């Protein structure tokens, strides 16, 4: 109803020298979201620090894209950039975020308000604190509807109850009258999903939607997200540090390291044969592998701080395959069906997930 798709014009990309490879990627016309050369910096007492460096990826309509990476690698920043929810002061964002043919990066705050909640929904990691404690969940969902559609309070409430039913909450009408504090974490996350999907957005960004939940609830929420995405044709940008979840749920994935995309391709082929040593390291930590350790403990060393980023490959200090050529800054280059930020991608034979 409020969609103005097609009327906005795409801002021509500025392709700086040295970033050619990032734009080598063919921009498919069917891409719903096309993030190009996204960089984000924050200012602190010592000056500007870059936290995202030329992040680029696309999400096709109806597709599920996974973003994986260690804590602090910039996954949430990427999501917040797309939503235009970065802090207003002390933060700089460059690059293009083309959504449905329009560059969100060039859109003002009021334009973004018509995108948020309507065209792009978002579910956050912390269900316990993500809902306003003094309004009933029904009111909060109805508020989203009323923000984007000129409907009556009653109709909005009805839509809210329907949305609660669609996330399989038993007794949705009763649930709508509850305050968040009387709901469990899993229930609140369902409410968050209902709220994010109530306006039937084209894209749903889920930033670690299950991390804070019990393991049994995690599986239910994942299933729900995927099923709803499929039923409504909503594309899903799924952020997690758990590669196992991506393996189960996504078609394509990107791996991020220290504010950069290091590998981008179809999940199946990455699992079979990772091209970047970091992705291979992530695979090591998948359950059922030789060393069934938790998280990413199988990669020794730690992420360099944003202030002390190596000039060459950012993964270099932790990489077992580092060579002389790795001292150069690494570009994202096309290799087979992927994009990889590793000079040795073609000559390394890295182990995939055991079959």
């Amino acid at each position: 109803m409020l969609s103005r798709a097609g009327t906005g014009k795409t801002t021509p990309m500025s392709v700086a020298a040295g970033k050619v490879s990032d734009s080598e990627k063919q921009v498919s016309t069917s891409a719903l979201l096309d993030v190009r050369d996204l960089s984000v910096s924050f200012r602190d007492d010592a000056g500007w620090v870059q936290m995202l460096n030329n992040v680029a990826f696309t999400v096709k309509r109806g597709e599920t894209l996974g973003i994986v990476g260690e804590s602090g690698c910039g996954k949430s920043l990427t999501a917040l950039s797309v939503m235009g929810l970065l802090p207003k002061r002390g933060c700089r964002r460059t690059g293009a975020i083309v959504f449905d043919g329009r560059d969100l990066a060039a859109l003002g705050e009021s334009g973004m308000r018509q995108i948020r909640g309507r065209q792009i929904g978002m579910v956050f990691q912390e269900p316990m604190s993500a809902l306003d404690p003094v309004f009933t969940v029904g009111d909060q969902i109805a508020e989203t509807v009323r923000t984007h559609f000129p409907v009556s309070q009653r109709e909005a409430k009805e839509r809210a109850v329907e949305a609660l039913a669609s996330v399989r909450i038993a007794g949705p009408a009763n649930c709508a009258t509850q305050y968040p504090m009387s709901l469990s974490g899993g229930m609140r996350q369902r409410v968050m999903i209902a709220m994010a999907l109530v306006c039937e957005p084209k894209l749903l960004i889920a930033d670690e939607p299950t991390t804070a939940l019990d393991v049994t609830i995690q599986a239910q929420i994942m299933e729900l997200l995927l099923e709803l995405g499929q039923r409504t044709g909503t594309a899903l940008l799924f952020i997690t540090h758990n590669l196992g979840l991506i393996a189960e749920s996504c078609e394509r994935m990107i791996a991020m390291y220290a504010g950069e995309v290091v590998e981008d391709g179809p999940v199946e082929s990455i699992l079979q044969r990772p091209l970047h040593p970091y992705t291979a390291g992530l695979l090591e930590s998948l359950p059922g592998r030789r060393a069934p350790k938790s998280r990413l403990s199988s990669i020794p060393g730690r992420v360099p701080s944003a202030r002390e980023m190596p000039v060459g490959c950012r993964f270099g200090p932790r990489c077992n395959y580092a060579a002389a050529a790795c001292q150069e800054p690494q570009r994202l280059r096309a290799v087979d069906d992927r994009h990889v930020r590793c000079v040795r991608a073609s000559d390394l034979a890295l182990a995939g997930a055991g079959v």
Partner: protein
Amino acid sequence: MNKLWRLLGRRLLQFLPILVFATFVVFGLLQLVPGDPALSLAGDYASTQRIAEIRHEYGFDQPLVVQYGIWLWHAMHGNLGLSLFSSEPVTQLIEDRLPNTIMVAVYALVVASAIGIPLGVLAATRSGSKIDSFVTSTASMGVALPSFWLAMILALQFSLYRHWFPTTGAADFFTDPAGAISHATLPAIALAVGVVATLARQVRSDLLEVLNQQYMRTLRAKGLSNGAILWKHGLRNVSATLLTLTGLQVNRLFSGAVVIEAVFAIPGVGSLVSYSAINKDFPVVQGVVLVLVLIVISVNLFVDIITALLDPRVTAST
């Protein structure tokens, strides 16, 4: 709704002992005031026997607890006794003077809320800016300003020198609203300054905390405007603490009124109680204290109900 009734019941049960305790303490404290009311009642040349008679007549020879019990029993029947000196019923004295005190207190509260709350909101939304540091630093000063000192400065400047406002007295709000307002303006300002500062500081810090909560990001992600986020969600979230704080200011205004009424010679219950305490006019002091405690308790009860309706966490946590 059930929870609300339970909250109400519990509050009433808490307030009753407070009421008894407060009036009993005042009863006891009055004994410490130097001088014997029987002596002054009896007049200068009374015989010892006459004084003893008076003591007996007024019950001063009874143990303290008994005296208090008798007073309480009468008070429960709406009889606060007679003034020892003017022999007027205490209820009549209070009825005559309470409106003047309420006028000043309500006036001060309205002015203070109308200025203090927006200032706090402004400072919170522009936190770190010049406006914020201005509000914060002026508020710290305002909190420390003694209201009687301010009252004297105001009286000197605006009524004695400039004659903008009357220096002393009060007028009835219903028969002479303009007069009542003009009489109450300076005292209300003197009382309001501290309240403005307290409110502004508290609103600023509470709102700042709320605005930094995770759910604020959710609200932005829904596509809400900054105005809706601040005025609907921000203020609703601080409303409970804000109302509670405002309720506390009512207590403060009534106690402040005692001093302010003396400075501006306002015939309110504040000046009545200080005058009567000096003269050991027990029944009057007791009556005024009872009425003030009742007012404060009712205000707090009212605040409790409203906050419980506004914020579900209140009923859950009590």
